[in-house]
């Protein structure tokens, strides 16, 4: 029957996806079990903090600066047209701290840290280093995944704050170059941005960091043999982390809006 083949193909695909989700869940559960029961050693964590935090900083700073500058360049003319150029500060800065800072920092880290984690662990798998760890009675998740997870989870809020900061400064410099009044620019920004906006942006980033670390380590551990296999693991780590960030962002925004409503009785101005 000609209909059977496509049904079988779809069935096999769905089965593979469910199986993959199951494996990822077990991997995540094992990671959290080690996280809860075992103190990660500083000698394992320190290089990861450096790799994720310090080495990512230049790219994050460049990303943040250009996001702020582009937003300023785009929004200035819209507000200028209605004679409210100094209001652009509110839009630029709210956009940066609530959405663009955390999301773009997350996406950059998905590319940099996620790709690098998957490639590193994938190479360790194909060169039997992960088997060597197991052969010596050491758990690879404890030794390789937990420190990378902690480092990414801890560093991403700081990187997001850096991204926000340079985005705000970059936006201001462009607005200033267009002749926007400095006092009014900052006054309108301060009127609109609440501590909650900054907090929610940074909080979101921790979820992005957790997703990037888990997905990328999982993809690295599942890498197939050879250069192509490692390359595919890095690519899949980035793409999956990227999609996870967008999906998580949406649901976390809904959740945070609900929390905001519950506490203050209204949703934020722009979201």
């Amino acid at each position, binding site marked *: 029957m000609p209909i059977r083949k496509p049904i079988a193909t779809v069935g096999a695909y769905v089965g593979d996806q469910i199986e993959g989700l199951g494996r990822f869940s077990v991997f995540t559960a094992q990671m959290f079990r080690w996280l809860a029961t075992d103190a990660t050693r500083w000698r394992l964590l320190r290089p990861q903090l450096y790799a994720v935090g310090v080495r990512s900083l230049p790219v994050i700073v460049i990303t943040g600066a250009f996001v702020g500058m582009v937003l300023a360049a785009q929004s200035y003319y819209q507000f200028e047209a209605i004679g409210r150029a100094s209001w652009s500060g509110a839009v630029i800065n709210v956009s940066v701290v609530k959405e663009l800072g955390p999301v773009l920092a997350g996406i950059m880290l998905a590319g940099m840290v996620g790709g690098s984690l998957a490639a590193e662990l994938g190479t360790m798998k194909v060169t039997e280093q992960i088997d060597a760890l197991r052969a*010596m*009675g050491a*758990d690879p998740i404890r030794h390789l995944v937990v420190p990378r997870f902690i480092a990414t989870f801890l560093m991403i809020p700081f990187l997001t704050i850096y991204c926000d900061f340079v985005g705000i400064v970059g936006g201001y410099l462009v607005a200033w170059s267009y002749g926007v009044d400095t006092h009014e620019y900052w006054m309108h920004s301060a009127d609109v941005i609440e501590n909650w906006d900054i907090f929610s942006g940074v909080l979101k980033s921790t979820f992005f960091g957790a997703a990037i670390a888990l997905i990328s380590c999982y993809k690295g551990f599942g890498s197939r043999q050879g250069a192509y296999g490692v390359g595919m693991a890095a690519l899949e780590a980035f793409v999956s982390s990227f999609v996870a960030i967008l999906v998580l962002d949406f649901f976390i925004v809904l959740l945070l809006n609900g929390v905001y409503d519950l506490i203050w009785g209204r949703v934020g101005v722009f979201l």
Partner: protein
Amino acid sequence: MSVAQGDIARRTAAEEPIIRLVNVWKEFAGNEVFRDLVLEFRRAATTVVLGPSGVGKSVMLKLILGLLKPDRGRIFVDGTDTTDLSERDLMPIRTRFGMVFQGAALFDFLPVRENVAFALREHKRLREDEVERIVREKLAMVDLAGTENLWPEELSGGMKKRVGLARAIAMDPEVILYDEPTTGLDPVTADTINEMILKCQRELETTSIVVTHDMASAYKVGDRLVMLHEGRIIADGTPHQIRTSADVRVQRFVRGDAMLSTGPTNG
């Protein structure tokens, strides 16, 4: 228990194989690697497992360590059935083993010192000077004294294998598994590795299992040679018995003669 009975019990325990693979089946994506494999390894002996590439020699080592699970059959380590043990339960058993990987599998994020010290730091609470002493001692055993601060990428292929050996013996294991220890090395370096294996065997009195397709190495280090072919054992004996085997498949392999099709001549 009388003294005589005690002697018998001790002798029996000593003669009990340290590792047993019982009716083991294993396949990968429809490719059958082992079909009802039965194999035992005696204590304090060096058993060399021979066979062409892809016959499953490395898979066998990974089955012994529990890095892979058999599809069917049981694996016993010192009388304990390890087949269904979890990763956590396998950890203490694995500390009784040392494994030298085919590509050395040194941790490229750690220098030589930390590679050798890894299992010590993981499983033993030793003072730093004690760890340092053991690392120096093991590196000296493989003629690599003074390389503690080098990184894996700074080592040649032969040096990597020797660091891998130093790492494998750091915990003074009861069993050392060697996965193709001489593959990819020039003849002189390969022979150096063989000497290291013999030296470890002499000085540590361990059980050694060497998988290889290097006959020179097999004859030099092996007390017993086992040949795998299409998932089963087709020859098992002393180096002399294997060298003089009447089985044409064994002769093809040990002589490295693909065209050999008639019965062998002895010697």
